[in-house]
Structures are given as structure tokens and as C-alpha cells.
């Protein structure tokens, strides 16, 4: 035993090159493959494109009966849906890994570092472990509802991806009621949580479910109202329409062209935190109060589904915020005319167009990951608020301010219609102000390190 310890002590903490390469290949490869599948399938799944694409590979659909064509189209859509749900699961797992790494550093710990380079494969190991765990159902639980609730949650989560734009043409369905649809299907999650809380036959779970219901339903209102601000600014509910009405540069984003939109973003962000049950609004599963809230009695695969949704929601809320306020997938120097020119007149778009799609997807993913990091950061800094404070924050602060931003945006739009320069001036001024704030924040951060006698050291990341 001691001899073994000795051997291990001699081993350094360095990761073997093979492990590192495998981790990098898998860590970047898996999302890349999934994103590439989304990239190809989401334009191709449109009926006209599907016909053209198949003709290009030598299959002529015009000979098929209409029903057969519908079936084929449905199959492609199902494949796309599966890819997107898989992407959601993978991104949720990766978020877990990343969050654990970041939170560990914030707490002077190392965090995941054993399975794969940087402990990357830990989320896979955890998922496998959860799948193999015993599936427990409490004795007096309502078994049907207990089994059903994770699927409500998963459905509410997965349906959001239908209207989530990944790029210029990369969206499963560009609904003309996009943001309204997203708000609506998100509410399905709370149904699942409420069912989970009630059917578990546990007082803690019941508390969690009730808190969650109160919280999510209340915060729908400020979230919806503040989401109306970009809708007002772009004049459409469609997610692609909202993105297209913004530009690629920060001073063309909704958040910075209208001072009230920035406030609206704050309200939207807080509301999304609350709807996603993230700290400081993790009351439904407050571990120090309710043990695990509505999750108390769940284990194994059902727990894994809840967990997946919780972390996948990070991506969803960040993606929605990016689309509404931060210019979505807009690529610099590539306006709609560039996309149109690249597409060409043919039935199938040209290679440049695909390249532009990749660029737009990269922009979108990068922005989303940045916002996602902010959510992670907030979670590991703030304590949890109390249930009555949660209500008072919603109804006394967020809702009135959301109304104010809503009305003020109406007035602002009238002003911009009269004098378009107002939006440019606001954009320039607010971006400059943001840069100044970021500078001071970075300086403050730097001072924090030297104030306690530490020094900047990234060597052990």
C-alpha cells in the first residue's frame, strides 16, 4: 500500500500526450460534428432545398408521390431534431464540465482533473454513472406522474431549439412568432417541475415544486415585457427577423442602440436566471433549505434528464439573450446583400455561402458562450434570495422597470424615426461607456489580487 503510494507520488500531474490529444479531439470534435450536422441539415431540411440537394446527388424527387415526399421530408426533420437534441445534451454536459472547472478556480480548488485532460471526460463518466444507477420511485409516489415529469421538462427545453437561430440560415423553423413561441414552450418546464414536486410524495419536493411554480410564472411577466423591447425595435417576433434588424458591430446591437434596451437586457437576464432556476434564484432546489427541492426523490436517468435540462437551459437563455440584444449571428462586413450574392441564383447555394454560414454560426456560438460564462460567474458569486424577496424583486422592481423600458422604447423609436442619428449617437456613447466600465472592472480585479498579496498565476489552469 505504501509502496504504491510512493509510486504514485513519483508520478507528476502532467497529462500524457495521448490523453491530451484524445481529449482535444473529442472535446472539439463532438460539438463540431454536431454543429456541422446542424449546419448542413437545417438549410437542407427546407422542402425546396431538399429537392434541389437530392437532385444534385442524382435522386429525382419529382417522380415520387407527394406522400412519399412528405415522408422523406419528415425523416430529414426528425434527423435534424435528433441532432439538435443531441447537441443540447452535449452542450449541457460540456457546460457542467466548464462550470465545475470555473467554480473550482473561483474557490481556489482545482476541480475536475482526472478523467481525460483537464478532467474533460468527467461529464461523460457522470452521465454513464447516472444511467446505471438504480431507478427509485418512492413507495407512495404517484408513479405515473413521477415517471412523466422529466419528459415534460425535457420537452419544454427541447422545443425551444426549434426557433433558436444558429446562423444566417441555420434554424429549424423560422417561426414568425419566434420569441412568443419560445416564451410559451419554456413554460412547459414548470409544469414538469410542479408535477415532479407533487408526485414525489415528499414535503421537500412539494416545497420545491410550489416555489418553482410561483417563481417561473411570476418571472414570465418581466421576461416577456423586456423581450418586447427588441421586438419593438425590430418590428417582428421572428428570431431571424430580430437578428437581421441588428448589425454585426456592438454599436449596432439592440442593447447598445437604445439606452432602455440595456436596462431591458438586465431585466431579461435576471428573469431568465429565475426561470432557469439559477443562483440567486435556485429556490426550487435550494440545497441548504429544501435538501434538493423537487429533485429530492429522483435518481438515475430521470435525475439525469432534469440535470441535462438545468444546464442545457444555460445555453438556451444565453442564446436567446444574444439573439435579442447582442446581434445574434451577425457577421461583420457581411450584410444581407453579401449573403444573397454568395448564395447565387442557382438552386443550391455556392461554397462562399456555406463559408459565411460557418462564420455566422461561429459568431453566434462565441457570443452565447460568453453570456453563458456570465451566468456561471454569477452563480458562484451570489447567495440565494428568499422566496418573498424573489416575489418583491419581480413585482416591485422588474415589472415596473420593464414597463418603463417598454414605453420608453416606444418613445425612443419615435425619436429614431424622426432623427436616425440618435441611434448612432447612443450606440457610440454606450459602447464607449461599456469599454470604460470594463476597464475599471479589470483594474478592480487586478487590484483584488494584489490587495491580499497574491499574484497573477495561470500556470495551473
Amino acid at each position, binding site marked *: 500500500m505504501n509502496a504504491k503510494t510512493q509510486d504514485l507520488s513519483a508520478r507528476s500531474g502532467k497529462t500524457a500526450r495521448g490523453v491530451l490529444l484524445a481529449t482535444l479531439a473529442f472535446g472539439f470534435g463532438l460539438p463540431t460534428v454536431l454543429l456541422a450536422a446542424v449546419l448542413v441539415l437545417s438549410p437542407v431540411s427546407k422542402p425546396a432545398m431538399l429537392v434541389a440537394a437530392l437532385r444534385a446527388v442524382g435522386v429525382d424527387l419529382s417522380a415520387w408521390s407527394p406522400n412519399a415526399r412528405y415522408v422523406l421530408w419528415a425523416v430529414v426533420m426528425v434527423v435534424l431534431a435528433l441532432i439538435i437534441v443531441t447537441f443540447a445534451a452535449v452542450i449541457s454536459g460540456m457546460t457542467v464540465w466548464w462550470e465545475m472547472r470555473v467554480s473550482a478556480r473561483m474557490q481556489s480548488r482545482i476541480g475536475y482533473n482526472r478523467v481525460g485532460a483537464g478532467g474533460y471526460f468527467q461529464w461523460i463518466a457522470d452521465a454513464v454513472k447516472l444511467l446505471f444507477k438504480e431507478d427509485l420511485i418512492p413507495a407512495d409516489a404517484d408513479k405515473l406522474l413521477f415517471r412523466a415529469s422529466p419528459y415534460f421538462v425535457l420537452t419544454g427545453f427541447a422545443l425551444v431549439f426549434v426557433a433558436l437561430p444558429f446562423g444566417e440560415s441555420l434554424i429549424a423553423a423560422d417561426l414568425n412568432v419566434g420569441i412568443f413561441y419560445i416564451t410559451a414552450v419554456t413554460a412547459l418546464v414548470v409544469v414538469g417541475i410542479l408535477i415532479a414536486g407533487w408526485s414525489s410524495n415528499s414535503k421537500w419536493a412539494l416545497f420545491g415544486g410550489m416555489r418553482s411554480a410561483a417563481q417561473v410564472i411570476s418571472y414570465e411577466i418581466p421576461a416577456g415585457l423586456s423581450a418586447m423591447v427588441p421586438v419593438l425595435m425590430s418590428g417582428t417576433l421572428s428570431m431571424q427577423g430580430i437578428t437581421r434588424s441588428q448589425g454585426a458591430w456592438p454599436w449596432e446591437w439592440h442593447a447598445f442602440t437604445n439606452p432602455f434596451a440595456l436596462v431591458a437586457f438586465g431585466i431579461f437576464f435576471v428573469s431568465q436566471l429565475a426561470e432557469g432556476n439559477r*443562483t440567486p434564484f435556485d429556490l426550487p432546489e435550494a440545497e441548504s433549505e429544501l435538501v434538493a427541492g423537487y429533485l429530492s426523490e429522483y435518481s438515475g436517468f430521470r435525475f439525469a434528464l432534469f440535470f441535462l435540462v438545468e444546464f442545457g437551459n444555460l445555453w438556451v437563455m444565453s442564446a436567446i439573450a444574444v439573439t435579442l440584444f447582442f446581434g445574434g449571428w451577425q457577421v461583420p462586413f457581411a450584410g444581407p446583400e453579401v449573403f444573397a450574392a454568395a448564395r447565387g441564383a442557382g438552386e443550391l447555394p455556392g461554397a462562399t455561402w456555406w463559408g459565411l454560414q460557418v462564420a455566422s454560426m461561429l459568431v453566434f456560438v462565441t457570443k452565447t458562450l460568453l453570456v453563458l460564462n456570465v451566468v456561471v460567474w454569477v452563480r458562484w458569486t451570489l447567495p440565494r434570495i428568499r422566496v418573498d424577496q424573489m416575489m418583491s424583486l419581480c413585482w416591485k422592481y422588474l415589472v415596473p422597470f420593464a414597463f418603463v423600458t417598454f414605453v420608453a422604447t416606444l418613445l425612443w423609436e419615435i425619436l429614431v424615426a424622426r432623427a436616425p442619428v440618435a441611434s448612432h449617437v447612443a450606440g457610440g456613447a454606450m459602447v464607449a461607456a461599456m469599454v470604460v466600465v470594463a476597464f475599471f472592472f479589470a483594474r478592480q480585479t487586478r487590484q483584488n489580487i494584489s490587495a491580499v498579496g497574491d499574484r497573477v498565476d495561470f500556470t495551473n489552469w
Partner: protein
Amino acid sequence: MEKLILRRVDRQNEEMILNFGPQHPSTHGVINFLVETDGEVLKRATPDVGYLHRSIEKIGELVGYPGFMPYTDRVDYVAAMFANEGYAIAVEKLLKLEVPPRAQWLRAISCELCRIASHLVSVGTMVMDIGAFTPMLHGIRERETINDLIEALCGARLTYNYHRIGGVAFDLPEGWRDKVLAFLDHFDKFLVEYDRLISFNEIYVKRLANVAVIPGPMAVNYGLVGPNLRGSGVDWDVRRDMPYGAYPNFQFKVPVGKGYFGVSGDSFDRYYVRCLEMAESSKIVRQALESLPEGEITAKVPRNIKPEAGEALSRVESARGEMAYYVVSDGTNKAYRVRVRTGSFTAMSVIEDISPGLMVADLVALISSLDVVAPEIDR
């Protein structure tokens, strides 16, 4: 007890009983609270203690006087040094021993370091109960340094068994004093950072200010001690008002709850008094290290300790408040009776009176602001 409560609960009003414990993340050990709630609002919370009873007082009658010392570590394992000190002082009173000054200084140094360590756990777990995890681990990180220091001093990190009847077990190791001073320099800055990180966080303040207010007279009536009592604005500290050991030689302030963000005696005051006490303890350790006298570290103690028949009471200011040891000797080499009076036990009694009208989340704040440690409640 459960039956008693079940009878009282009015089923018509959809009240329910929640067994808040014995295994619950925020009971800080094995305590049960029988909570009658109407939704989120508590009707009352009744503490049900005794899950961690280990008969330590009885053990004190069965093992000899020196042999009981390691058991005192287990009375309050978060701040074991004070339990050591209290017992040692009580037996020294029985033996009419004069403890050498250097030993007294070493006792003060070790105890104040231990107080910092204990308060770091207290404020850290309190923050964790309120929902933030990061500050708790920052506190634990600083405590690790203290643990390392105490480990270098006496060889153990948790159950120190450092004090002896008539003195202390070890003198300072070489280079220890500089390590402590370096740590304290860092620690004072850390306290500022900790306050900025969480103490004045608006959510945190709002969660604690004006919550579970224990007015001063009520705190006295319930026998609250230590930071819980001082948080209620009662200016009482055994170290200053009934000095023992080396404490008369040190200058230090006794922080008192002034209603920093709410009214005096609320959860935030109890929390913040501990933060301030850590800074004062740091000052005491500095002074003690500067004025450390030379000399013996133990008095001349007979190998077979047989005090004359009699009784002795010692009072020390533990991290959890006044801790009293009452030792009765019948002239043999084993105590006739050992009684430990601890702060956590009396703190439990106040919960039932304070709890009506609180919310479930406030109960968590109340429990952690009282800084109860389950083994100290039950002994």
C-alpha cells in the same frame, strides 16, 4: 414529542409538520427540528436534540483527570482548544496550581487562533446556508492554514489535546512565530476581501438583516452566550469581564451588535460580530507573540493527580460563547462529577420562541447564525 405536536397541528388549515433533520444539509450536525409550517411560513420550530449524545460528562467520571483531556476535544470539535482550556483551568483550580506565564500566553495564542478557525467555519457555513458557496471555501482555505499552524504546534488538526493540566504540551516550534505573523498579515487583508465578497452583498444583507431578532433582554433570559449574546447588543465577554489566563495583558475590543443593517440582535449582527471578532483575535495573537514571556510551559504537576475533595468552576470564552467546566473531586484520582456548560445548548432553546413567523429559509439563517455545533449541544 412528535405525538404532542401532531395533536396541536390543525389539519384544517393545511399546516404540516416538516422533520427538518436529523439529516439535513443545514443543521450542522445531527439535530432535528420539528417544524410546523403553513406553506413557507413557520408556525413554530421545536429543536429535538440528543442525536449526538456521547456521554462525555460520564466519561469524565470514569477516566482519570489527565485522561479526560482528549475527550474534551470532542465536546466541540470545531473549537477544541477552548474545551481543553476550560477543563485544564477547572482542574488547576482544584489542585490550586499556578500556571507559568509562558504557558498562559501559549494558551491564549492557541485559543485565539482556534477562535479564528472556528469563526471562519461559522461565517463560511452561514454564507453557504444562505446559498453562496464560494465564500465558504475561501474561509475553509484560510482555516487550513491555521490548521497547518496548529498541527505544527501540537500535532493534530482537529482534536488538538494541546493544553495540559498545569500548562501546555509543547513549546512553540522553530520558525512558527514568523509563520503565524505572516499568516495574520495575510488574514487581515483576507477579512477585508471577505467582507467585500459577501458580507455587504445586498442579497446577503437583505437575507439576514431584521431576520430572527433576539433582543438583548431575551438573549440574557435564554442564557445565550458569546457572539450570540453580543450580537444582541449585550456587552459581555468573559475574556474582558472575568479575565483568566493571559487575557488581562492584552488590549482588545469586544465587538457588539449595533444593528449594522437592521436592528440590534438580528441574524446579520450575530454574523458580523464574528467577522469583527476574528480581527480582534488576530490582534490578540500579535500582542501575545510580541510579549511572549520566557520560562516553563508546565507547572510542577504530580504524576498521579489526586486533588483534595472539593469543587471548581472554570469559565472560558469559547468561540461559541462562555464555556464552563464544573469539576467535583472526591479526593480520588478520578473526578466525582464533570459538568460541561456549552453555548450551543442554550442557543437551541431560543429557537422555539424566535421561530414563529419566520420563513423556512429564515430558519436556516437563524440556525446558522446561532452557530450551533451538534456535538456541543449533546456532549
